[in-house]
């Protein structure tokens, strides 16, 4: 035990100070166990997508065949493309609407402003299931049955729902960024004859940019991750990735689902890494 303790403390380092909680053994073990708990299932899922066995539990050798199977599963591919399309459109709309919301709340004093702010926060806080069933009933009752329309318009209902729950999240992120804006900039621009729109386009939007990127990242992942609201707003005619996987999972656990899931995880991680990197570079440019 003591050798293990020494190993974790890396002998030649100075004694653990009173506030060096991160170097205490039991905390390290807790953190390690938590991370194992969080990552073990996802990592085994990814690893076993390469496993050459239908039983999916004993390692029988490396294979890509389940990826081939997933690629040749036309329903799965269709569902995947649909989900990416929804996420793409929803991200653009959410960033625009979120930026406008943030701008209004940041710049203007108007009657019932507090109520407005509260209402804008509602989609963030209410249980997904409530929003899901409300939108389902709404689309059914208003006859907004987009399922039969031509692609990509058959995805309208789901996309509208995704925008509705994503843009308030984007607004929060963008608003946080706006707080650091120096209003003297926009005032002097106006004194020099710039119009409202010019100030917005040439001064405020460039300042918002890191917030816009962060908001877009959030909106994209929110859309791609959502199951509940998609489940309720997708009619029988529309295939989306989560709903397709849901029906496959209920049926059985197959390596094909592992392969498809791995692809989605990798896409999310890449997009997140890109966005983080972009944001970092922006911050550095601003600092420099």
């Amino acid at each position, binding site marked *: 035990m003591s050798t293990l303790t020494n190993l974790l403390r890396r002998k030649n380092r100075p004694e653990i100070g009173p506030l060096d909680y991160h170097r205490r053994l039991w905390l390290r073990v807790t953190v390690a166990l938590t991370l194992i708990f969080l990552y073990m299932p996802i990592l085994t899922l990814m690893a076993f997508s390469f496993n050459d066995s239908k039983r999916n*539990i004993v390692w029988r050798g490396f294979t890509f065949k389940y990826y081939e199977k997933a690629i040749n599963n036309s329903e799965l591919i269709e569902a995947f493309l649909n989900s990416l399309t929804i996420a793409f459109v929803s991200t653009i709309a959410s960033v625009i609407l979120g930026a406008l919301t943030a701008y209004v709340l940041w710049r203007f004093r108007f009657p019932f402003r507090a109520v407005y702010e509260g209402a804008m926060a509602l989609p963030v806080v209410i249980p997904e299931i409530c929003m899901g069933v409300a939108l389902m009933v709404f689309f059914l009752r208003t006859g907004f049955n987009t399922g039969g329309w031509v692609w990509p318009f058959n995805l309208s209902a789901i996309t509208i729902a995704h925008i509705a729950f994503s843009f308030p999240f984007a607004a929060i992120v963008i608003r946080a960024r706006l707080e650091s804006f120096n209003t003297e900039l926009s005032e002097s621009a106006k004194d020099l004859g710039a119009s*409202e729109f010019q100030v917005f386009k040439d001064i405020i939007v460039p300042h918002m940019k890191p917030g816009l990127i962060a908001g877009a990242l959030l909106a994209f992942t929110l859309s791609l991750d959502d199951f509940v609201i998609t489940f309720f707003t997708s009619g029988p005619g529309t295939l989306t990735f989560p709903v397709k996987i849901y029906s496959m999972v209920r049926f059985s656990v197959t390596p094909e*689902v592992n392969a498809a899931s791995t692809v*989605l995880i990798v896409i999310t991680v890449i997009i997140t890494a890109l966005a983080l990197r972009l944001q970092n570079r922006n911050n550095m440019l601003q600092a420099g």
Partner: protein
Amino acid sequence: MDNWRKSVGAFWASFLPPTFWLVAFFLAPLSLIWMFSFGVKSGITDIDINWTLQQYARALEPLYLGIFAKSLWMATVTTFICLIVAFPVAIAIVFAPPKARMWLLLLVILPFWTNLLIRTYALIAVLRTRGHVNFTLEWAWENANGLLTFIGLGSFNLIGEKFEPLALLYNNTAVVVGLVYVALPFMVLPLYAALDRLDRSFIEASLDLGAGHIRTFWSVVVPLALPGIASGIVITFIPTLGSFLTPDLLGGTDSQMIANVIERQFKSANDWPFGAALSFLLMYVTFFGLALRALLTRREGVGDRT
């Protein structure tokens, strides 16, 4: 902040689009099911809105009250486990060197960005009868049995005649494990934020004055981090209480939570008024939690100023 009358054009141009979206695709649908919750079913798709409270009365029947109580219980247990696990993790992250801190935070948040369905599916593969946990246990059992045979105790069946896989899936425990798995980042982040703001000289003073780490934790760290703890509890509790997918995929027949009942009313049972009433009851509980959180954090704020 400008008065909106000062630049009316800019105000309306930025006010109208998001407001339209919120009203048309959020508030209108919610109002619609709010109205339905006061109605009765009068046909396969017809709903007669006669402002009766009978759907709410039905929700208070023992069967549904029991499901509500069970959901609250599951969410409470999940939140409690999350709090116990997340606190040491948050402490470790806060006191880590800056670079390690960034990586640890990223590692905690990353699963959060992965699709919920995929994470739940990953848990199924781990927990099912022929899953990774049982597989590991079986391997351990066989080795232990081999060892017993080797030392001559094989014929006594000391650890059972053969390996019995544990039923880890389709029960309440599986649901709680799944809920903790999903909700843990929700708890770590507010705790991290609260501990990060905490002035370390208080901890140092407490330690200098002879209090131990445990006493310092209970009488200095916890009181100062209370708004963060309250935030974390509410932020974890609310989505957990309303979760649908986890009990649906990991639970058995008796681990239905309130969201599963709501789903059934809107899909297979086709009883929208009742489902609407249940949805609003769930929403009222949510609002109550949020109000409580606002109250707790505000009281802290007042305390800071005086």
